[in-house]
């Protein structure tokens, strides 16, 4: 996704000299070409994220479209109040880009796990929150947020993720992309777990259950229509996120379902507990430890469907 982002912002900078990229002294091997090609549209603010974000706001208030870029929590939590007051309150045209969303920097430890960012960014007025599911979505998301004249948060994975989408996608902020059609249940994922969601659906297909897969790349504003359609048409929704279960995708979907009065549906959130990782290891390893591997998810969904549907049939009769 990192490469896709750089490709997209390079194209944007070429087209529009208002587009600026500010980095917090991170992006080795990633941002150099951009810096060389567009020196007047690039800035390394140093290891100083509060200042970086304030500068971005000041530049945006002077007519620029400014992307701030760093890893994991650094461009988000370290400078949260600058994001709230300087960026959001002033409706400054700033795009906050975090590489290494979720557990991408697994072995680097909990300081580098961005696992509450979606909840925190969702809570900020005016902030659009985007976590693309694969490189193609990341590229399209970068273009989409650049055209959206308000604060946006772009949560990227790492480098080298597989492409999930095989065909050209139609990417619109706030509109989920349906990856697989099915009537039996729906998997809604955000960010890099899209690949996992697709694999889970494939696994069920072999057993005769057809899953709808929605890539909910925009967590705010959430695509209520897609959620409610899934609720009506498949009666079972499972959310997948590499994020705390508090306040992220699952919470957002639950809010939509509860307020719409969705009844008689199966609903379960898969994500991370509100905890610091108890294990050390790669992204895959920590995911598996928290039940986010394909096998664990298949088992948990199967068991939930079986219990819930048995239960609802029993009570109905």
């Amino acid at each position, binding site marked *: 996704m990192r490469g896709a982002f750089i490709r997209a912002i390079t194209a944007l900078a070429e087209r529009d000299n208002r587009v600026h990229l500010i980095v917090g002294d991170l992006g080795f091997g990633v941002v150099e070409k951009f810096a060389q090609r567009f020196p007047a549209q690039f800035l390394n603010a140093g290891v*100083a994220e*509060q*200042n970086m974000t*304030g*500068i*971005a706001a*000041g530049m945006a208030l002077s007519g620029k479209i400014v992307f701030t870029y760093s890893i994991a929590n650094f461009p988000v939590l370290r400078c949260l109040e600058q994001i709230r007051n300087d960026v959001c309150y002033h409706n400054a045209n700033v795009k906050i880009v975090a590489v290494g969303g979720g557990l991408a920097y697994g072995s680097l430890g909990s300081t580098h796990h961005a696992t509450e960012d979606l909840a925190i960014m969702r809570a900020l007025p005016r902030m659009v929150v985007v976590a693309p599911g694969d490189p193609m979505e990341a590229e399209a998301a970068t273009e989409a947020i650049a055209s959206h004249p308000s604060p946006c948060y772009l949560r990227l994975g790492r480098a080298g993720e597989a492409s999930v989408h095989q065909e050209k996608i139609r990417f619109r902020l706030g509109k989920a992309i349906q990856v697989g059609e099915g009537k039996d249940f729906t998997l809604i994922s955000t960010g890099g777990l899209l690949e996992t969601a697709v694999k889970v659906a494939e696994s069920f297909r072999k057993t005769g259950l057809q899953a709808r897969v929605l890539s909910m790349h925009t967590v705010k504003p959430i695509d209520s229509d897609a959620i409610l359609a899934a609720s009506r048409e498949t009666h079972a929704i499972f959310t997948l996120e590499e994020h705390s279960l508090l306040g992220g995708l699952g919470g957002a979907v639950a809010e939509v379902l509860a307020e719409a009065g969705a009844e008689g549906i199966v609903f379960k959130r898969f994500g991370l507990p509100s905890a610091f990782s108890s294990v050390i290891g790669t992204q895959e390893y920590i995911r598996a430890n928290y039940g986010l591997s394909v096998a664990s998810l298949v088992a948990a969904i199967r068991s939930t469907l079986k219990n819930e549907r048995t239960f609802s049939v029993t009570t109905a009769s």
Partner: protein
Amino acid sequence: MTEPKKKQSVSSSALTACDASLVARDIRLQSARMIHRAKSSHIGSAFSMADLLAVLYTKTLRIDPNWPDWPERDRFVLSKGHACAPLYAILAMRGFFPKDWLDDFYQDGAHLAGHATHVGVPGVEVSTGSLGHGLPIACGMALVGKRDGRDYRVFTLLSDGECDEGSVWEAALFAPHHRLDNLIVIVDYNKIQSLGTVKEVLDLEPLAAKWRAFGWEVREIDGHDVQEIEQILAVLPIKTGKPTCIISHTIKGKGVSFMENNLLWHYRSPDRDEMTRALVELGEEQ
């Protein structure tokens, strides 16, 4: 962007021809009335910077009340947003918005909030209130000015207590590195912060040397001597290629004897009796 109704130069307005000390007196009087009516705080912080604001808004800033968003305007960022009453007062005096907006400052349904707020208030560049935000934003504005070859200047007024914030020093490191000589920091060094004197709470000394060491062109002035303020602000940048830091030595509560150098007036709102005495000392015309 619409064209200005009239390109009014600052010096053409009556106010700008005034002696800045008279304007400062009016700012203090107006701020006192606002804070008294509102029963709000920070009158001491307002009085320490009144002379600075008077000079900035009558002699220095290239601004146009008829076109607040004029792209080539000088930017003024009040980073010590708690001392917003005198800013609102001078903006109203300069004609950015009606003076009667000052009457219900800080009260239910008012136009003007208790910290500097840009929403719906022409002339307020940036909303502040949390300390340490103004200088980074000002750096961003100044950087765009440099990169785009524009000649506006960016002024930001900081409190001394605000200099405890790390973000101030992140920005202090940034501006000289990028040779932002269109950026002017003024520190309202009234020596008293929220819970005590600066010396007691978190000593900033040697303050001028700190800014100098970070690469700024530093001058220390008497922040109540309008001529000295005017002179220093007339020769900007003091040194080409370097941002300017003006350490303005001031007195918290300046202008009212019982408020001067007294921490209490960071918080206390003058009651009727205190207000009467204050107005007399400030020279309210009977």
